[in-house]
């Protein structure tokens, strides 16, 4: 059985590890931090804006693959990946996370955000889809006084002033509840926690008694037929907490993703990690890859230093899933020199003026990254792979800022599955 080393435990790294394990590879997953899923919105974006609002993401991907790119400009990673890779990747993810992701590559949900914008996304968690906006949808946006990252009044007001893409508006009102995630001990002068995180609420909602109590508090305040929007804190471990709450309330319920820490993102992370572990993937958390060895144009091992001693991980193939600047896969030093931090791979998209003054404009810095061949191997100027068995996936690929066009997850999943399949074929 061939050993494959995956570096990085964001969406791309976790999907690659699962896919490789499915094909019978012996997978080691090295990761330094918790992975980017915990900081994201917990849905799967394929294409949200291109540049207008996208309703059919796979069609937008197809259009992107056909787009002529002027010489010297970067093309979107989808152009190299192709439509099929996106379909295969997304289908795979839906298949491995059937309880957590629903939707179709043919259409985007349009879901409210925690500032009250309406955001397109392709696959959502079942707990979110009742928020897919439609004209005249009656919404009660509910928040907690003790949860500062979600203000229901702001969300409701912004939703109300937004004309929907298909015309019309939702009709939203807000409720701010005094309902604590953590109560003080009985008889204690402390009245419980005033400044609770999303995680504290999510853990509380895992407990059915808490849900019952909450439903008793909220239900009398709701009007007939209202759909209830809540911050995305409806359970961390119990995937049916939201459905149970909806039943207790007698109303449709949906979750709205929050800034980090992201409870829906943690759910995805936990599910993908648990699945990988169940398939025999060995995860090594808390390590940074510090060096590597090459023989005859192939990477043979990577070096970590978990303590005083170093430790080498040998492999027949390596998957680089260390992400972009936000994750540490790419870095820029004080002289403006930009590097891929692990293998010092050649980058594309470097410009003299990599940042510009307009905050809302495109920042070329965040589009630079690796260029890869059909097997997702980073290539140099010659077009040849730098190392015959090194593959790169996810946010480290050049050509897009996923937060702008809402394509980061699609690129991660499509590239991870494509790389895993190329490796499996090669090693077979």
């Amino acid at each position, binding site marked *: 059985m061939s050993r494959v080393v995956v570096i990085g435990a964001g969406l791309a790294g976790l999907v690659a590890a699962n896919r490789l394990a499915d094909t019978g590879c012996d997978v080691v997953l090295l990761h330094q931090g918790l992975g980017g899923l915990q900081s994201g919105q917990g849905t799967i974006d394929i294409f949200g804006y291109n540049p207008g609002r996208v309703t059919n993401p796979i069609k937008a991907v197809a259009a992107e693959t056909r787009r002529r790119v002027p010489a010297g400009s970067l093309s979107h990673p989808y152009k190299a990946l192709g439509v099929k890779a996106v379909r295969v990747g997304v289908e795979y993810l839906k298949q491995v996370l059937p309880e957590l992701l629903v939707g179709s590559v043919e259409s985007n949900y349009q879901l409210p955000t*925690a500032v009250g914008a309406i955001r397109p996304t392709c696959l959502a968690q079942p707990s979110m889809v009742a928020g897919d906006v439609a004209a005249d949808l009656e919404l009660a946006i509910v928040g907690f006084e003790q949860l500062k990252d979600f203000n229901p009044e702001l969300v409701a007001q912004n939703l109300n002033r937004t004309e929907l893409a298909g015309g019309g508006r939702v009709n939203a009102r807000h409720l701010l509840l005094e309902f604590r995630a953590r109560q003080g001990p009985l008889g204690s002068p402390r009245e419980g926690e*005033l400044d609770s995180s999303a995680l504290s609420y999510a853990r509380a909602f895992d407990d059915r008694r808490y849900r019952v109590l909450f439903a008793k508090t909220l239900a009398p305040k709701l009007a007939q037929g209202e759909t209830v929007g809540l911050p995305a804190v409806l359970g961390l471990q119990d995937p049916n907490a939201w459905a149970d709450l909806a039943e207790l309330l007698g109303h449709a319920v949906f979750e709205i993703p929050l800034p980090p820490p992201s409870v829906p993102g943690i759910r995805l992370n936990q599910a993908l990690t648990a699945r990988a572990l169940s398939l025999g993937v060995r995860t090594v958390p808390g390590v940074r890859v510090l060096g590597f060895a090459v023989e005859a144009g192939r990477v043979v091992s990577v070096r970590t230093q978990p303590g005083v001693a170093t430790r080498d991980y040998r492999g027949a193939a390596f998957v680089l899933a260390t992400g972009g600047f936000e994750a540490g896969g790419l870095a820029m030093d004080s002289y403006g020199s930009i590097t891929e931090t692990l293998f010092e791979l050649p980058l594309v998209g470097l410009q003299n003026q990599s940042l510009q003054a307009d905050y809302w404009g495109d920042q070329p810095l965040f589009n630079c990254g690796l260029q890869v061949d059909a097997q997702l191997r980073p290539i140099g100027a010659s077009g040849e792979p730098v190392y015959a068995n090194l593959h790169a996936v996810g946010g480290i690929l050049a050509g897009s800022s996923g937060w702008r066009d809402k394509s980061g997850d699609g690129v991660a999943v499509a590239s991870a599955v494509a790389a895993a399949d190329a490796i499996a074929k090669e090693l077979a």
Partner: protein
Amino acid sequence: MRRLTVDVVVIGGGSTGAGVIRDVAMRGYRAVLVERADLGQGTTGRFHGLLHSGGRYVVSDPESARECAAENAILTRIQAGAIESTGGYFVTCPGDDPGFAEQFLAGAKASGVQAREVGVAEALRNEPRLNPGILRAIEVADGAVDGWQLVWGAANSAREYGAEILTYHQVTKIETANGQVRAVHCRDLKGDQDVQINCDFVLNCAGAWAGQIATMAGAHPVEVVAGRGIMIAMNHRLTNRVLNRLVYPTDGDILVPAHTVSIIGTTDVLAHDPDDLEIPSAEVQQLLDAGEVLIPGFRDTRALHAWAGVRPLIKDDRVGAADTRHMSRGMAVIDHTLRDDLEGMLTIGGGKLTTYRLMAEHIVDKMCRKRGETRPCRTAEEEVPKAGAGHSHRVTDRLAAREADRADDQLVCECELVSRKMFVDALVAQPQASFDDLRRQLRLGMGPCQGGFCTLRATGIAVSEGNLDAERATELLRLFLANRWIGLWPILHGQQVRQAALDSWIFQGTLDVEHLPNPEVAVTR
């Protein structure tokens, strides 16, 4: 149209104007201060936060040195809440002339600036990150001062004496009749109305903009030589004390620990427009190199934010020695009576934040003489009113406050320990404030995440408790992010790139703020 009648109108809400309004109010004049933006939004808020001991000038400008030493002691007494007496070192770095220390010590003695040479080993014990190759070290009484707290303190003191402070009031016209100032006309930019302030005296404290104001009164052009300097805030306090290069004053020779950061400054380049100040990458590199000399490894510490300020030096060939009193190099009062046949206006330029009180004393003394009145200055004798809770300069005071109320209040900004109550109180007191206005008073969004986590919370609170509708609150959020970016992109490197990317994932990725509906009229303040 709103009409007011006072004795004196002070134009400019920087440190000079705030010092002047306090002084005139304490001397019993009815006075109004008008400022086109927020208090301390110009030069006052865009410097390195150094409260001079005078050491910087003992060789180059002994008169300034003497003034700084005296004013440092006065301000530390009357505005303790705005000042942190960190102490400072002047250090001879490798390659610098060790003999300069003798000139420095002699100059310090002559100008009454406290200075004491300490051993290199002692200096390195006290400042472990200091370049171990330093050759000499001299201890002085430098400190850190928060320009905004200083200005707000003076303004609040003036209010207690009956003065009115009108921010976001832009002067549109200075009315004169028969060679005498009669009124100042303003536009209230937030209240959207015209304001006429009848007066018989105008004190022009507009700093780098003083020339524009003088022209409005029909005076001959006053040439303001605007010297632009950039500053960079580095994360954490890298040193305990202010560090200065023991050399003749030059670029990038000062590092000031202030609040939760350390500020390195500064450069000096002629600027043509004080409203359009760039932060050129060559100057950023120059400061990082200079920091590396003081603190090895400086480039690998985290740069958070940069800004540019402009020194308001007045150059005026029309004025002879007879009619301008040079109180020191850098501080000058222009008397428009002799120069322009205009009664009732004085213009002040130059100076330093450390000597802002003294500048005010000088210009108000001059006004009193011109009015034929004897009203002595009392600003050095009386403390400014104590700042409110959470308004102290010292970061440790905020920590102590959080210890006390950690179970009773939420934190809006974890980086700078801004509690919900602090934010709500400021918002209620200033319902028209932008988040940037509140930031200057609270330090909201000025820490490592540069608004990544607090801005959404602030927006929500503004809607729930600040009586703002979601449209305005959302526009303030966008404006805040865009304004933070102005000082971020020129210095973005290292860990701060990572932060900027994470912040983009939050605001654009998760929240999609860029796709909320745009208002019909852009919100700019």
